[in-house]
């Protein structure tokens, strides 16, 4: 049985137009890595959206970062400030991993 280590899962759900900007910020703030997957539709205060071929910029993607608690917190803060006036979701939750050193 290998040991498990507690980390934080940071998820940032943001418009396609902003992904590159957020990734740049994550790199600068020292994320060891990230994984991006794209959402297909959604609804919020600003109404419904749907990924389509005509206005890709309005589609949304989820950026997943697994990191040490303090790092995850710092990244979350940085992204939150960066996207203050953008409609982005920032979610933090607990997760366990085997490879302590990797995150």
């Amino acid at each position, binding site marked *: 049985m290998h040991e498990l280590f507690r980390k934080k899962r940071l998820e940032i759900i943001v*418009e396609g*137009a902003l992904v590159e*900007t957020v990734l740049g910020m994550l790199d600068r703030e020292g994320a060891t890595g990230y994984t991006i997957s794209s959402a297909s539709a959604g609804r919020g205060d*600003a109404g419904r959206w749907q990924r*389509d*071929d005509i*206005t890709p*910029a309005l589609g949304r993607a989820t950026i997943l970062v697994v990191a040490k608690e303090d790092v995850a917190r710092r990244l979350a803060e940085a992204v939150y400030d960066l996207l203050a*006036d953008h409609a982005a979701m920032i979610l933090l939750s607990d997760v366990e991993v085997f490879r302590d050193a990797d995150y």
Partner: protein
Amino acid sequence: MGFFDAALANLLTPMILAFGLGLGAGILRSDLSIPEAIGKAMAVYLMFAIGLKGGVAVNQQGVGVDLVLALIVGALLSFFLPFLAVALIRILSPATDVATRAAVAAHYGSISVVTFLTAAEFLRLSGVVFEGFMVAVVALMETPAIIAGLWIARRGGVGSRVSNSSSLYREVLLNGSVVLLLGAFVIGWIVGPVGEGDVKAFFDAPFKGVLTLFLLDMGLLAASRIRQAGGIPPGLVVYGIVMPVLSAAIGGVLGVLIGLSTGGVVLLAVLSASASYIAVPAAMRLALPQANPGVYVTLSLAVTFPFNVVIGIPLYLWVAETLL
């Protein structure tokens, strides 16, 4: 022929009927849909094909001061029409917030490639010739409006802290459709009719058919916008129809002044009248997040695009042919 004949001739092409089919299916909430990747692929195909065709034409006709003039006028239209837009919105829908007003303005200074394609096809069907270099004008008109819109917004005290990021400039200058149109245009210019021969069977003959399916897709997308359009104040809907007509008039007059052919005049009018829904929304989400995409995308996609494609294009042609 009279306007109604022209309008009817346009209406009864497979392309416009397919657009109507998509619109109807979407409004009735049919589950008919075209995969996202396919819509994008058709757009790439259409832009490459039209760019190539334009370049080949220029390779044959050669260019002179007329191209330069058209480019200058196009850029000026793209940059200054947003100011007209702002004024018009102030009148027709005073309640609109600064950010949204600036964003909408940017969309109407910029252009819609599909509207241009549809117009070009309609001219061909009507046997009206136009300058091959108009494609270059299309590419050039995409972006000055974005600068104008952001300038208007900043003057109004709105904008985003990420807007100064390099991604915005990439969006503005290296936008995919601009690169594709200009790239294909240059390729056509270089290879000329001979080189085109190799790929004509793919880029020429099937063009109308692809445009037909693409307009079916546009109809579906416009419909899904219309279904969500509840929030749009009537004043802005009126704007979405008045603005293109005004812009077309201005663009058309300038086209005449710089001595474009009738076809060229109509296309410049169409470009002025059309509103962006690809490049500009991307730039606005980035640089003007406070603006409401539910308003600007819906206006250009669900109001102005259908108006131009169904009524505007034959109208502008009819006026041009009557007056010239």
